[in-house]
């Protein structure tokens, strides 16, 4: 058991939680939490699995993840704007399918 293994396990657990949250969440904001958590899990996986934790740090995966963080915030910002607009127009912040499923 070393650091890389530990963080791979953490990434797997986070990804699982994210997927679970994405499925059960009704509110769109909750779906966004879940998607962001899944993204973070993948970021951890990329850095942990690059083998840089136990040897010399590898700049490539870190640079990739840095790009990923910025893309994630861009996508989240757009999704939030969409969510607010949806709420404005329909008075609901859930997806149509979800309501059907509830009935």
């Amino acid at each position, binding site marked *: 058991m070393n*650091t890389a293994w530990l963080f791979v396990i953490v990434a797997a657990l986070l990804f699982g939680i994210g997927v679970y949250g994405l499925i*059960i969440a009704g509110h769109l*904001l909750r779906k966004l939490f*879940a998607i962001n958590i899944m993204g973070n899990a993948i970021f951890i*996986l990329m850095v942990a699995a690059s083998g840089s934790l136990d040897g*010399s740090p590898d*700049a490539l995966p870190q640079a990739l993840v*840095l790009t990923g963080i910025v893309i994630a915030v861009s996508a989240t910002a757009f999704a939030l*704007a969409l969510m607010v607009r949806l709420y404005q127009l329909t008075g609901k912040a859930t997806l149509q399918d979800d309501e059907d499923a*509830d009935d």
Partner: protein
Amino acid sequence: MNLAIDALIGLGLVILAWQTISGRSLFRGIVLFVVFGLTMALAWARMGAPDLALAEAAIGAGVTGALMLVAYRRLVQLHPEEPAQPNRRRSRLALPIAALAAGLVAVIGLGAVSAEREPGMAGLAVMSELADTGLGNPITGVLLKFRNLDTLLEVAVLLAAFLAARTVFADEEKSPTPPRGDLPLVGALLAIIIPLTILVAVHLLLAGSREPGGAFQAGAVLAACGVLLILSGRLQPATRMGLAVGLPLVLGLLVFSLVGLAALVMGAPLLALPGLWTVYLIETAMMISIALTLVLLFAGASGLRRGDS
């Protein structure tokens, strides 16, 4: 001992993620999500990635949290009597699917970790090339030298996200931030914090060339200034985007493209940066654009104007 600290952080991440997903109130969820982001920053620091720790704290936790809070406030303003209920869907498949996904990630990760690997051929090649760029920080070096097209497109994506969001903010009337009176302490806080934040942003920008930092971290820190100014009413959201906002908004993309094309004209490959000074130039322009984009996303507006106070 070190593994114990890592395990504690990992456990914290898992618990926070679970609480964020399953908590009852949305507001609580946002707060927990921010705490999750800050814990992620700790994890990055432990994993030997201080650049990512900075980016995560500033962008992942700070900016995302602020954007979520703004969206939440809009939701509450629209229907104050009905706070968003945690309507959860029941799904018998959720748990098996989640377990499957987690297993998949674990298999991929553990496979990659335990795989025999040529000891960093690509990495060593990168490091030897980086010596020529004069950039001490390999992350910035990789971003600007080997993956510069990605970095350029990344700025473009951020701008595109803003433009897309802008079409969605739509035609609604912007209610100006209500004047908060002249709270003496807030004025003093601003007068101290904002100059200091600008200094720190410039430091991060320059430091990015030899130690953790860079345009994205600096831009996020600078964006915090704008957010503070909006919250205190010194800057107001405006419906029209003037040149004073529009030009800095595209400055990063513009300067990066021009420098990159100039290289092509002079016979070098596209986006080959001729010297360290171009790196500073591009990073500064990118910082300004990134900060402004984030502030406008926070304001949910197309432009900014000076407040009356």
